């Protein structure tokens, strides 16, 4: 692994571990926020390897994640929509499902 890439991965790993520690003392709503933000950062880290689906997922996360700070109901709806979007994406990736099985 090239140094730059490893450094970027450590940034993500550090983010996740520090989040685990800090969430002991922070508002519980930041737990789900940190998780989806970590997904966004993970997709970002994969760079060119990320599929258009994953890049689209990241864009959705970036567009909706900060609602946690302004509107709890909106953030909840955003997470629900994200889950459904992932189910759809996984369906697209499953030949069985595509064929109606």
């Amino acid at each position, binding site marked *: 692994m090239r140094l730059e890439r490893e*450094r*970027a991965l*450590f*940034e*993500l*790993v*550090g*983010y996740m571990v*520090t*989040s685990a*520690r*800090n969430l002991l003392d*922070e508002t519980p709503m*930041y737990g789900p926020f*940190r998780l989806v*933000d970590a997904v966004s950062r993970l997709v970002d880290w994969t760079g060119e390897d990320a599929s258009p689906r994953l890049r689209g997922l990241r864009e959705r996360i*970036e567009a909706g994640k*900060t609602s946690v*700070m*302004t509107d709890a109901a909106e953030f909840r709806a955003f997470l629900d929509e994200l889950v459904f979007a992932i189910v759809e994406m996984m369906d697209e990736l499953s030949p069985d499902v595509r064929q109606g099985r």
Partner: protein
Amino acid sequence: MELRDAILGRRSIRAFLPEPVDRPTLDRLVEAALWAPSGGNAQTWRFVIVTDPNRIGRLRAVSPGLLGDPPAVIAVCQDLAASRRLGSTLGETFLAIADAAMAAENLILAAYDEGLGTCVIASFHRGAVGRILRLREGVDALLLISVGRPATVPPPPVRQRDGVVLYEVQDEA
């Protein structure tokens, strides 16, 4: 820019353009912070300005609240040993925090006046940030402020007034 326009117009920015902020500009922001009031005029604050991308990356790794990729981060620190020496227990446990917050407000309003976006962050690992910034014994980072040209500006959140702003007393009974 009118002060009121800055107070009402400033937003917390969490996405930045990849444009550097030059040192004279950063100096002006910290100059504004230095003119904030401090309890007993203690001025025990310390400001560490970080623009090295590698160091910012390391700060990001231990600062979950540091969102986006800002070209500069300013750590608002306090010499808590000096705060205690000058202000006793109140100085260390309260004034140091209040002073850092007032300095941060000056700084972010000055940044807005310069066309810059900022976000004040408390979600970071204090010990790890201290190590990355090589803070001296007794000095702690209390706030991190990301600084850069805004990539997106969020809409203003609702400001509550009912039950928040009161005259004379809170309970009338």
